């Protein structure tokens, strides 16, 4: 006992000694007076919110005293300050209930990243040259205000554009209000993996323009069409919690999970039954399942209600979708379709969900509507064990499409004088064909609020670095993951390390300097005030049993990381009549004779859409299936590899009608022979020391096809060809693919 304590003490001492070696210039730095009261060695836990993906999980940040090298008032020195040491899930938070995914864990490294922008920058060199000069906030804000006031004076329409990642809450309100005052567009929201097709389908089928909250935990039968719901899709931590519960949380009862897709995703790997399906045929397959259920009188066609009525031929029992008729197109044996349909119909509750590549075909909306109809037929919509809809935020209006904006700007049809960028990297994450870079080059003044130089912010003239999430006020209204109404809020978990300011604060500051209507439309001095105001409104609307007034309500929300309803929220569906849709076959860019393979980009479990490629943890942790580290790969079936004489680790060239790239080959049995898959995330040309120049970016060769009926990119609609060009560099953590030695076959 004493011995172990001693070891622990010496361990801590060792760590300190390792960090403060003799002769370290740190010792010559002046020490600032601490800004906080801290007890060394004692950890405090502060709530926060994960901002790395749209799920909006609640965090608890372990904060301990430490000494950081910081600049205060232009002076470099050592400051004893509270430092975030570890991120955990917030156990009280309804979405993630104390759990956290690997990406969320790594959020810590965003704050401490060595290549974070440490203060406002003004471009000095040629645009894109990466030459910047550090300036103070006064000068930086002045420059922004000056550009904006010039713009305001010109009274020009659409002269201001604001490209952001999809946002929620007060930040969105502030940005939208700000942009609206310039008679411009609303902000342009852009993310490569967006949920607009699913929102559109859910709006049509169920009257909720929201991604679904899938209650997997109490479901007995889950059919997933392409959705990587345990990895990156929608609200993965909430879904993983549900998955664990479905499997082993209910003694004596274990649900079944069937996955249809083209390449075994991390989610597919956990399926009880993994069934490959032809790309884009998911809708047809769903309707074939529905056909069996209806035809065998397991359910009445009318049970699907409005969602069913949107499908042509539904009321007739979908005669065109009999398994035998569609089997060839779908690529699934008729008896398998029938069996799955019978199993699903026999299980209550049973649920179907669709996502990722299945809705990123040109017929993605049809696929989504078909799966929605299947879910409705299975009777699980709006019920425990089925699909629920949260009410965190009101249905959002469709954002302006980056694609059309970019083409208008680059063609000169629209003139943009000032472009603001926040948390979006469209130069990397949009297909090259969209011409985002060309459009940006036409904009005379670009200001970015980014924390890092990336492909997009490298083009900026002015960089106004935001705090890292842990240093910032945060709020969020997650739209899926919990049936409860969730409004998260968190004060900064730690003081800013660098000379940064919150984007919302800068914008509010600029608004006040610009004057005019802003005093009324944006009455808050700071972002904190804006959030507090939203909570005051929330208190007025929802009331509280525990807090006696708005102040206490606000204080309690900060302590627990937000406010959430005790009961599932009940939001009325807004169903508008719609016309029945016909099956539409997926269209693929590229002639199948010349480009024989489907190209399937997929979200990386660790790098997500590439926005996390700069975190060393995310680079070094092996991908769950390929076990690849520090690089990308092109996944191909052994039969395809044999045909093309490609071996594991060979450098292959993937050519689409819209471009080509090179990456090492990974030969995997878990992919259809006519599909070539590649993770999104690597291939950054300029994104910190850890991500720059690493691998290739599959987005760059995508055809600019859209999902019919929406403005979304059909990112699974490109065909490619590939060939071996040499030896590549593939770093795998895992040794053998198979548990039994392949050498044994020699016997």
């Amino acid at each position, binding site marked *: 006992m004493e011995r172990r304590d001693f070891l622990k003490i*010496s361990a801590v001492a060792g*760590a300190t000694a390792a960090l403060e070696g003799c002769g370290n210039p740190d010792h010559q730095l002046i020490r600032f007076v601490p800004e906080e009261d801290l007890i060394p060695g004692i950890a405090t836990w502060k709530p926060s919110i994960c901002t790395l993906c749209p799920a909006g999980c609640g965090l608890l940040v372990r904060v301990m005293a430490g000494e950081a090298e910081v600049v205060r008032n232009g002076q470099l020195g050592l400051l004893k300050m509270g430092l975030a040491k570890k991120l955990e899930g917030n156990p009280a938070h309804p979405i993630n209930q104390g759990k956290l995914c690997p990406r969320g*864990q790594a959020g810590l490294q965003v704050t401490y990243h060595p290549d974070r922008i440490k203060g406002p920058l003004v471009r000095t060199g040629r645009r894109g040259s990466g030459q910047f000069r550090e300036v103070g906030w006064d000068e930086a804000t002045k420059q922004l205000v000056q550009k904006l006031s010039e713009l305001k004076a010109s009274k020009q329409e659409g002269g201001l554009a604001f490209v952001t990642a999809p946002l929620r809450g007060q930040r969105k309100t502030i940005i939208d209000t700000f942009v609206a005052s310039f008679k411009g567009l609303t902000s342009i929201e852009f993310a490569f993996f967006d949920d607009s097709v699913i929102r559109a389908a859910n709006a049509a089928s169920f009257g909720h323009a929201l991604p679904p909250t899938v209650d997997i935990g109490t479901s007995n039968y889950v059919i997933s069409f392409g959705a990587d719901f345990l990895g990156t899709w929608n609200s993965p931590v909430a879904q993983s919690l549900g998955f664990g519960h479905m499997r082993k949380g209910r003694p004596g009862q274990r649900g079944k999970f069937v996955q249809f897709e083209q390449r*075994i995703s991390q989610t597919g790997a*956990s399926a009880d039954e993994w069934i490959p399906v032809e790309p884009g045929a998911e809708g047809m397959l769903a309707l074939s399942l529905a056909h069996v259920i209806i035809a065998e009188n397991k359910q009445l066609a009318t049970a699907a209600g409005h969602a069913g009525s949107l499908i042509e031929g539904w009321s007739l029992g979908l005669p065109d979708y009999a398994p035998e008729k569609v089997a060839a197109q779908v690529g699934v044996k008729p008896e398998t379709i029938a069996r799955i349909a019978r199993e699903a119909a026999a299980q209550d509750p049973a649920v179907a969900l669709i996502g990722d590549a299945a809705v990123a075909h040109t017929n993605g909306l049809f696929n989504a509507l078909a799966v929605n109809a299947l879910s409705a037929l299975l009777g699980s919509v709006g019920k425990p064990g089925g699909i629920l809809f949260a009410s965190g935020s009101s249905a959002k209006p469709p954002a302006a499409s980056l694609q059309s904006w970019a083409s208008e700007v680059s063609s000169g049809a629209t003139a943009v004088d000032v472009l603001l960028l926040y948390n979006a990297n469209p130069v990397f994450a949009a297909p090259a064909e969209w011409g985002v870079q060309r459009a940006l080059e036409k904009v005379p003044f670009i200001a970015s609020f980014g924390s890092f130089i990336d492909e997009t912010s490298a083009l900026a003239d002015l960089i106004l670095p935001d705090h890292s999430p842990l240093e910032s006020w945060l709020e969020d209204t997650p739209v899926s993951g919990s049936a409860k109404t969730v409004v998260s809020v968190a004060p900064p978990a730690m003081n800013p*390390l660098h000379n940064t300011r919150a984007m919302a604060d800068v914008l509010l500051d600029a608004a006040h300097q610009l004057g005019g209507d802003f005093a009324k439309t944006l009455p808050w001095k700071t972002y904190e005030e804006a959030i507090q105001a939203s909570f005051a409104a929330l208190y007025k609307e929802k009331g509280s049993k525990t807090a006696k007034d708005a102040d206490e309500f606000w204080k309690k929300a900060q302590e627990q990381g937000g406010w959430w309803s005790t009961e599932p929220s009940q939001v009325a569906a807004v169903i508008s009549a719609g016309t029945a849709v016909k099956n539409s076959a997926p269209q693929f860019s590229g002639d199948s004779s010349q480009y024989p393979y489907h190209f399937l980009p997929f979200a990386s479990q660790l790098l997500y859409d590439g926005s996390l490629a700069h975190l060393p943890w995310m680079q070094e942790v092996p991908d769950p299936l390929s076990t690849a580290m520090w690089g990308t790969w092109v996944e191909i079936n052994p039969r395809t590899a044999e045909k093309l004489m490609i071996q594991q680790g060979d450098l292959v060239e993937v050519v689409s009608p819209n471009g080509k790239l090179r990456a090492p080959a990974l030969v995997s*049995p878990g992919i259809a022979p006519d599909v070539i898959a590649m993770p999104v995330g690597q291939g950054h040309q300029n994104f910190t020391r850890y991500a720059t120049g690493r691998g290739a970016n599959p987005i760059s060769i995508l055809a600019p096809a859209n999902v019919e009926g929406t403005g979304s990119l059909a990112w699974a609609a490109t065909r490619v060809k590939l060939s071996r060009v040499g030896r590549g560099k593939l770093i795998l953590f895992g040794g053998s693919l*198979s548990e039994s030695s392949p050498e044994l076959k020699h016997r």
Partner: protein
Amino acid sequence: MAHQWGMAIDLDRCNGCEACVVACHAENNISTVGEEQAALSRAKHWIRVERYYEGEFPDVRVKFTPVLCQQCDAAPCEPVCPTFASYHTSEGLNGQVYNRCIGTRYCANACPYVVRYFNFYNPIWEKPLQLQLNPDVSVREEGVMEKCTFCVQRIKAREIQAAAEKRELRDGEIQPACVQSCPTRAMVFGDLGDPESEVSRLARSSRATKLLGELGTRPKVNYLPRDSWHDSENA
């Protein structure tokens, strides 16, 4: 009776998401080695998720198994260490005393699970990444073997806290970083010496198996293999 810390991992729940791996890196100050060293198979992941494919397309299955130090009761790594850097604690953990380690790497050879990781170079945290380091865990220098400790710093902190509060430890009160983060709750940690604990209950279940149990290492991590779905089960 001293605690006997153990773990149960339900592979029917595990979905291979790697959250445990990152949590472990963050909690235990495991340095990243970078691309060049990773290519030399020197990456350090105290817990890793082993992935095996079975069968050929289209009848492919994938199996995930998180593998961490099994904290064997009859650990092959312990007797081979000439300096007692690897030794058995009274609470059943395979301790690794970094200060005693001279880097023979014998323990890593003896370990059938290959869960011991060697510091081929001094660890590097490019400033200010060093600020993320957990002050409760020592940083290991070049030439030293390291491995999963079941987050002994968390165990000790809770034990000290419970002793200060003059109470017994509650089952489930101690959670190593991997267990705490696991989104599917596949991992359960607790005292195998307490027959009432959740981990003991799982260890006794008919599903429980040990990884390479046939080697006689008596691991304290119990694996509950993937189940299959039977229609009748739910009927």
